[in-house]
């Protein structure tokens, strides 16, 4: 039971396949409770898939996914929707409901899951919007917001129900430096102030390393390395080192596998 308390999310021997392609092969990941854990790796290595496995939007081909002491692949559809109330997700695009304004977007989880009176919902929404600094944008529609603001509204919506686990899908992609700085601060702040478990999926090294307590580097269907940011910076594993230091060539080659260059140019057609 102590292990269960220490880890909010545990993946045990998880494999996942899409079509004939293996995305994960026998992966073990443990996310400590109350910390910011980052999952990093090159693009297309299945980081988002990992979040969807934890959110039970995808079922693993093999293995167990434990969240707060529940084995997700074994749950019924209704139990899953119930479990997800304890989770918040910040999607890459924000995923605000385009037909609702900012206030209604943040109020949405409260309206569907609670019987709170309108007054109280209003107060909660204002508090959440204040936390992300967008209380003034109350009446705007999502298409009137900038990309960074959309993400902050989505963040306010994700924390509306005070979840225990908060997942961020590529929160830094396509953000200007100011918006990036705001998000970095918000993630750290929300984690510490609300005592939630944060999972950040990203390939933006500097920002992620600056807030993460613990890092996983995934790639090539495996967990390549794990540890604190400092430990990973000095990793012995050449693939981890290539990723952490951002060298263009290495175990992950610069060239996509191809026939011999010389033969291709000079050979018969």
């Amino acid at each position, binding site marked *: 039971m102590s292990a269960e308390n220490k880890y909010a999310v545990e993946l045990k021997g998880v494999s996942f396949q899409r079509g004939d392609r293996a995305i994960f092969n026998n992966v073990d990941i443990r996310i400590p409770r109350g910390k910011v854990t980052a999952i990093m790796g090159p693009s297309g290595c299945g980081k988002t898939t990992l979040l969807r496995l934890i*959110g039970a939007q995808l079922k693993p081909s093999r293995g167990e996914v434990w969240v707060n002491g529940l084995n997700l692949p074994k749950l019924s559809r209704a139990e899953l*929707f119930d479990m997800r109330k304890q989770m918040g997700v910040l999607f890459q695009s924000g*995923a605000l*409901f385009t037909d609702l304004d900012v206030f209604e977007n943040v109020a949405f989880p409260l309206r*569907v899951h609670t019987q709170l009176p309108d007054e109280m919902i209003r107060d909660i929404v204002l508090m959440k919007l204040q936390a992300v600094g967008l209380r003034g944008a109350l009446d705007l529609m999502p298409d009137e917001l900038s990309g960074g603001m959309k993400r902050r509204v989505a963040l306010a*919506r994700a924390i509306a129900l005070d979840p225990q686990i908060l997942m961020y899908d590529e929160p830094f992609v396509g953000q200007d430096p100011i918006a990036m700085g705001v998000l970095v601060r918000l993630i750290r702040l929300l984690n510490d102030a609300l005592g939630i478990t944060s999972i950040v999926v990203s390939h933006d090294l500097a920002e992620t390393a600056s807030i993460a307590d613990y890092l996983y580097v995934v790639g090539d269907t495996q967990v390549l390395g794990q540890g604190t940011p400092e430990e990973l910076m000095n990793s012995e594993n050449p693939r981890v080192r290539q990723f952490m230091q951002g060298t263009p060539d290495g175990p992950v080659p610069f060239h996509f596998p191809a026939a011999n260059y010389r033969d291709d140019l000079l050979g018969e057609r």
Partner: protein
Amino acid sequence: MRKTSTLERVRLFGRAGLDVLATLGRSTVFLLRALFGRGSSGNSLQLLIKQLYSVGVMSLAIIVVSGVFIGMVLSLQGFSILAKYGSEQAVGQMVALTLLRELGPVVTALLFAGRAGSALTAEIGNMKSTEQLSSLAMIGVDPLKYIVAPRLWAGFISMPLLAMIFSVVGIWGGAMVAVDWLGVYEGSFWANMQSSVAFREDVLNGVIKSLVFAFVVTWIAVFQGYDCEPTSEGISRATTRTVVYASLAVLGLDFILTALMFGDF
């Protein structure tokens, strides 16, 4: 070499067949879950009203305009043919029967597929590609209940109403042409119509037809949106598929239904 390529073709054919079966299975599970699955969707009446508006009310204009024109054309064509046999007064019954049995349900379904069906597919596909559906699921709201079910019900309710409005407007347009322009005696126009149109055989059968069409067209539209590849090309392809599949399904089913309903006399 030749042998393997034949075998390969058979394999591809089998693969295609399996894909079709898989899609049918997925869409059936999808439909059953959306309509009968457990789970709350909050204020479902409010959602239904919103969808009735965007699916039904917004299709009203195109339905009414097409109905008037089709009724008028039917009347003109019918008159010129019937006049050769000296039975112009039968133009009323011809217009009414054609509209009630065939054109009302079928043309409404085709227009509905083009107007509301494609919009449904594009809207749901867009929600999928912008992760709104995933986001709903992660908030703990079943998108099948919250997004899909109200749209399905709105389609089921709207289309028979639209088809009846189409028929009424068409008959009115036909009467206008026949009585006011072509000089068919108004009394015999309506009397002929009333004596040959039976409520159960013609009106209700037409309504049953359009219920079936409503079911199929809305199902196809909503499923294509939900099942599409979440990219802009994926959405545009799904929208095209909705219109093509829905139109073919309507025309095919119309033949079967007509054979079942009116085939034995």
